[in-house]
């Protein structure tokens, strides 16, 4: 039932992403254009030009939602999210260093920079938050993430202040965009996401057993630390790859798993496939909304997800405080 609703929403969101923009088309026109891509109508040309962007949205949304769900489960922390935990900031700094200091131009090498940045930031935040006797509580993680993100932002700014070209490239990257300049640039990140998904599927049953408590899980033959490490590695791969193609898109990894958990409970084996459907719904909806909300310009997807995500986050917080 939930799957059906999500598939329906996803079809709607993907359809809207193809139909709306500076020029809008009716559902019939979109379907015609998809069935006869070689037709010489306006609709066929514009709709097919929107396909790569929509596919990109599917990939990024799925990866971010899954990464968020894995991190929340692995850290037993409902507020874990790649953006809030400084991982996107780590990617951003690594990308700026990559563009600037080493003159990296190829997308392949930038992916690796974003990934390494994401991994280093994830390890640092997690390590620092776990060090106190209280363990990695939501507050400690959020603050460690905020502190690290701010420190890295300072360094990023220092680099950008000295190069106008870098600033010009970076300011458009950092608001997030699903636009694809050439389809080949999505291939490597998509492969990384696939590896991340495999790791996630591998870790999901173990994560569910960890939900019973580390001792019970260990007596069932699960290695708690090995499962957590696999899950975090998957989350870093997924969010790092998503950040490489779309820039830092915040709040997706937080909001989607939370909403799904309200509906189906917190079993990872159920959540993993549902995140793959729910993430793209939010990202495509935010992206499409951003295209039509302020014509003739566009509000970038990273800004839209923040503007949609922040209120949801606040509502969740209020509900948690009441419970």
């Amino acid at each position, binding site marked *: 039932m939930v799957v059906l609703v999500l598939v329906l929403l996803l079809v709607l969101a993907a359809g809207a992403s193809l139909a709306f923009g500076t020029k809008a088309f009716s559902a019939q026109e979109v379907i015609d254009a998809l069935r006869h891509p070689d037709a010489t109508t306006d609709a066929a040309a514009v709709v097919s030009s929107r396909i790569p962007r929509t596919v990109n949205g599917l990939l990024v949304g799925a990866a971010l939602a899954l990464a968020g769900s894995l991190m929340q489960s692995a850290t037993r922390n409902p507020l874990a999210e790649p953006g809030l935990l400084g991982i996107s900031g780590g990617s951003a700094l690594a990308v700026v260093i990559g563009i600037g200091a080493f003159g990296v131009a190829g997308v392949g090498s930038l992916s690796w920079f974003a990934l390494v940045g994401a991994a280093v930031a994830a390890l640092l935040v997690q390590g620092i938050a776990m060090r106190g006797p*209280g363990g990695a509580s939501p507050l400690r993680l959020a603050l460690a993430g*905020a502190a690290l993100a701010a420190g890295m932002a300072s360094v990023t*700014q220092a680099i950008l202040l000295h190069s106008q070209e870098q600033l*010009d490239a970076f300011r458009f990257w950092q608001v997030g965009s699903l636009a694809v300049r050439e389809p080949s640039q999505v291939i490597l990140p998509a492969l990384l996401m696939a590896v991340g998904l495999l790791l996630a599927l591998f870790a999901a049953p173990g994560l569910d057993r960890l939900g019973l408590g580390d001792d019970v899980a260990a007596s069932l033959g699960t290695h708690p630390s090995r499962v957590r490490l696999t899950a975090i590695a998957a989350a870093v791969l997924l969010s790092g790859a998503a950040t490489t193609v779309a820039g830092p898109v915040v709040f997706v990894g937080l909001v989607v798993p939370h909403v799904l958990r309200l509906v189906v409970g917190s079993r990872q084996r159920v959540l993993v496939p549902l995140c793959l459907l729910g993430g793209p719904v939010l990202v495509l909806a935010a992206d499409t909304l951003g295209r039509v909300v302020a014509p003739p310009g566009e509000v*970038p997807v990273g*800004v839209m997800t923040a*503007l949609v995500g*922040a209120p949801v986050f*606040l509502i969740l917080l209020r509900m948690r405080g009441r419970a």
Partner: protein
Amino acid sequence: MSRPVTTMTRVRTRAGGVVLCLVLITLLAASTRLALGTRIAAPGDILAVLTGGGRGALRFMILQDRLPAVISSVLAGAALAVSGGLFQRLLRNPLASPDVIGVGYGASAATVFGMLSLGLSGWWLTGFALVGAIAVGAAILAMALGGRDLGTRLILSGIAIGAALVAVVNLLLTRTDVRTAGDALHWLTGSVTDSSWPQLAALAGSLVVLLALTAWVAPGLALLELGDDTARSLGRRAGALRVGVVVLGAALTAVAVAVVGPLAFVSLMAHPLATRLLGGRGNLAVTALTGTTLVVVADLISAHLFGLSSGLPVGVLTGVIGAVFLLTLLSRERSRA
């Protein structure tokens, strides 16, 4: 009777020593800042310029370039530090400073909006910063009130609102030409070297009023700090006091941010640092002095240490130092979680 008296005397002596040290460090850093530059000024020259004498290029450099930087460091450092101390004491959490909980982002988002979208400058920007900071302060207070864990939820709401405001600022940066975006980024990093004399006069004036108000609410704040029971015994005054402290703290952040930009982490660091220096007894006056010392020293280092002709904006340095400081504080913190 004699023991409390000697303890009080020891505390006073320690506080006196701390104040003396901070003043000396600040004076030393400030005079070094006045002396160094493309043309190095001798102590006699500086004194001559400050008393209205001196001549030519050196006088111009000191009066238009180095002295405004020192004075805005002093004023902004004090304002940010006291603002941080107010929030940290109100929420009884050393990590709840206005820059972490989004109030600073309110001021900077409003200012960047006024600067880039409306083309405003001067007093209008100060007003915008003020409205932005107070609006965010009110929003997170409204979000967090009426539930358990006031402090925790206030911080988390602030971080979420801050993230959304950062997204707005990033959006505004893409809506302008790259040179204006560069200027805005420079402002967003926080810099004490672009302030004019009228701006500094306005900052000094508003600071006098706000610090007087702070001294007025400080005794009530001390009662709130004693715990929820004491706060309850204050009755309805406690609510009014909380709102007053949030508005005052937000206003202090706003007047500083409007002139020097959102200098990262000064408001976070100053009060805990001052408390440690005083041996565990916080005092907002020493906090103000600590903030001043921090910014004056950071400005001296960032202007000269890196050997760049233009120097780095001081905000880069306070941001990096602050991140390291906050992370250390987090990994040492025992009681809170």
